[in-house]
């Protein structure tokens, strides 16, 4: 694949959160590149930092408690993290976002049409005067209502929404989940973005509806030649939509490669465990991955995955953070098992040899529990390797939610 200039490039992102447990170092040195016209997926389990990454790119990370400690974000060469106005501008001119929960992503108190009209009217404006707001609230807009309506209807129609005219006058609550998600896509498309971020837009939907939505989304992307960053934890969905996939674990990128590379023969132990755990029509490996995401306030040293890794090498993995080794195929994997320049075949061989998930855990004497969480019982039992295990109990995300 010949690389054109990336449309979006995220470099060395580091994001921390202040929580009552202390400072959570969530995103650690994340690089993501999206090329023009490309769809890139980020996959990973819940809490691994996918949404935080997306929020950072969309400039909507809540600060505080979040803080972007380091990193640059280039959109078509323009740095955005250091320049909020530029970020705002680029965001409203060129980016669009689709969210997971279509119900909460639409204002419950305005009709679909009203929202779409506002999107069309304020397209690209970053500020608006008081008078304008009042006029707007009173229903006066300078723009051409009929034209806006036509445009909205056209878009809704493209997304196979039955009775688009009628939908414009309805409130989100009057629409089904699938319809809402389509409306949401339409809203994102209205602004004629070049770059789309979708954060698990189909997770709440049934498979058949998901299937429809994915079809429509691909169609739109092709039609408008969009670039997209698609976040999901569903590997199957990633397969359907993505050109390339980033596998994320605990705020770090574990592996990057084309969709087939990642899904058919993952190299990183984590990716491998992840892919294996998914029930498939062919088989279902019930082993899973031992343990839990680490405590972000006290992440493991070295490779963040090492406490759960069946191939972890004591003295290396728990000490040294693996760089992203680039294989000859262009695939990158952040694991000490590999080195730069390996061919895919060589790498696959290593993976097959070294990585073995089974019900007997890698790091634990207690085989079937999820031991990494249990600080008190684990700590000190087997010095060297386990000393640094410090899975959070409970995970801070849950705490703040409850």
């Amino acid at each position: 694949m010949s690389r054109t200039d990336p449309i979006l490039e995220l470099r060395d992102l580091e994001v921390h959160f202040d929580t009552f447990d202390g400072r959570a170092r969530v995103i650690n040195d994340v690089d993501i590149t999206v090329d023009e016209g490309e769809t890139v997926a980020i996959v990973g389990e819940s809490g691994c930092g996918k949404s935080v990454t997306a929020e950072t790119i969309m400039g909507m990370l809540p600060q505080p408690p979040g803080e972007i400690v380091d990193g640059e974000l280039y959109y078509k060469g323009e740095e955005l993290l250091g320049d909020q106005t530029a970020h705002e501008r680029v965001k409203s001119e060129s980016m669009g976002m689709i969210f997971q929960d279509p119900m909460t992503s639409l204002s419950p108190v305005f009709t679909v049409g009203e929202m779409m009209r506002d999107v069309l009217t304020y397209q690209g404006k970053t500020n608006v005067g008081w008078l304008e707001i009042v006029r707007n609230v009173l229903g006066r807009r300078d723009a051409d209502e009929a034209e806006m309506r036509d445009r909205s209807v056209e878009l809704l129609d493209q997304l196979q929404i039955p009775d688009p005219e009628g939908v414009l006058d309805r409130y989100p609550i009057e629409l089904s989940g699938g319809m809402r998600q389509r409306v949401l896509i339409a809203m994102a498309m209205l602004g004629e973005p070049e770059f789309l971020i979708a954060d698990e837009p189909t997770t709440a939907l049934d498979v058949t509806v998901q299937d429809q939505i994915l079809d429509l989304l691909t169609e739109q992307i092709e039609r408008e030649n969009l670039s997209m960053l698609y976040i999901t934890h569903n590997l199957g969905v990633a397969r359907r939509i993505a050109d390339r996939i980033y596998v994320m674990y605990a705020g770090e990128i574990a592996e990057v490669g084309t969709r087939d590379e990642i899904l058919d023969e993952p190299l990183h132990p984590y990716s491998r465990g992840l892919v294996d755990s998914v029930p498939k029509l062919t088989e279902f490996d019930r082993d899973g991955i031992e343990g839990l995401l680490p405590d972000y306030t006290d992440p493991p040293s070295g490779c963040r995955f090492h406490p759960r890794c069946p191939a972890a090498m004591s003295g290396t993995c728990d000490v040294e953070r693996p760089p992203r080794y680039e294989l000859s195929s262009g695939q990158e994997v952040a694991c000490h098992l590999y080195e730069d320049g390996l061919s895919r075949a060589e790498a696959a061989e290593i993976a097959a040899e070294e990585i073995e998930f089974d019900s007997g855990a890698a790091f634990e004497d207690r085989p079937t529990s999820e031991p990494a969480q249990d600080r008190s019982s684990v700590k000190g039992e087997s010095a060297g390797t386990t000393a640094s295990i410090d899975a959070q109990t409970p995970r801070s995300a849950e705490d703040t939610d409850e």
Partner: protein
Amino acid sequence: MSSDHTRADETDSIDDTDEPLLQVRDLEKYYPITGGLLKKQIGEVKAVDGVSFDVRRGETFAIVGESGCGKTTLGKTIARLHAPTGGSIRFDGRDISALSERDLKPVRREIQVVYQDPTSSLNPRKRIKDIVAEPLVVHDIGTKAERRERVAELLERVDLPEDFLYRYPNELSGGQKQRVAIARALTLNPSLLVLDEPTSALDVSVQAKVIALLEELQAELDLSYLMITHDLSLTKNIADRIGVMYLGKLMEKAPAETLFDAPQNPYTEQLLSAIPIVEESEAAFKPERISIRGETPDPSDPPSGCPFHPRCHRAVDDCSRVEPELVDVGTDHVSRCLLHDEDESEM
């Protein structure tokens, strides 16, 4: 128009050599819809509408279907958390569909439910030990010490360390909570577990372990499972037999392999076709891609005729008028579609 097909209802009772643990016949559960000025009942949602199936001893029977099709309602009705509107539920040879709350108490020891959301299914204000011991307390079983022992044993059974006894649910991860929920369900030595999407709130790597645990328990404790899920790939791997539901009705029921190898119902076909596959190799096990259209209908106002006809890729004119019945289409395999009759007559 006569057909050779026997009505499906009788099919299950064919092999009465070993009576199934659970026999569900024509089960109905309707929810009233109220509205208007006086909140009169103005309609009903037929959440479960004439469902029949058996769960044999030691097997896993899976119910799959889309959101809102009535899976949860079915599970809860069988566990008698709801009173059925109609039909019968025979459990261990006894009809439990009309028992009073008091008479149900012994039955409750036998049928337990594990819920989808592990967070909501554990009382956040109670310690794990109290949660797991609650069934014993409610049924007034054992002394304090005995209970404590039993709880410790159960915790070990579900692979949780002993010091979890004193924790509160919010100090546990999702997978751990689900293990606690399973432990609680096992406390009274039930014979049937209703598993309502027990892993859908979990990450895949955790799901795998919980599934492994469930299978292990089933083997060791001779449990029967009624597994409710929307993940077809999962059912393929763990279920013995599968029922596919749509809008409160059973559309197809077959042994797992049969269902995946030779699905008879267009709805099952669509479901299978929509599964996003992860590995290239899976593609071989999927039917041709079917382009899906239409919206999930409103359960309170289901389409006439075949409930699936508006979205069906095989729909014919009659589908909107004639309501198909479940018919035998193979060994232990029934399906609900008008086309079966036509196929038959064409033959």
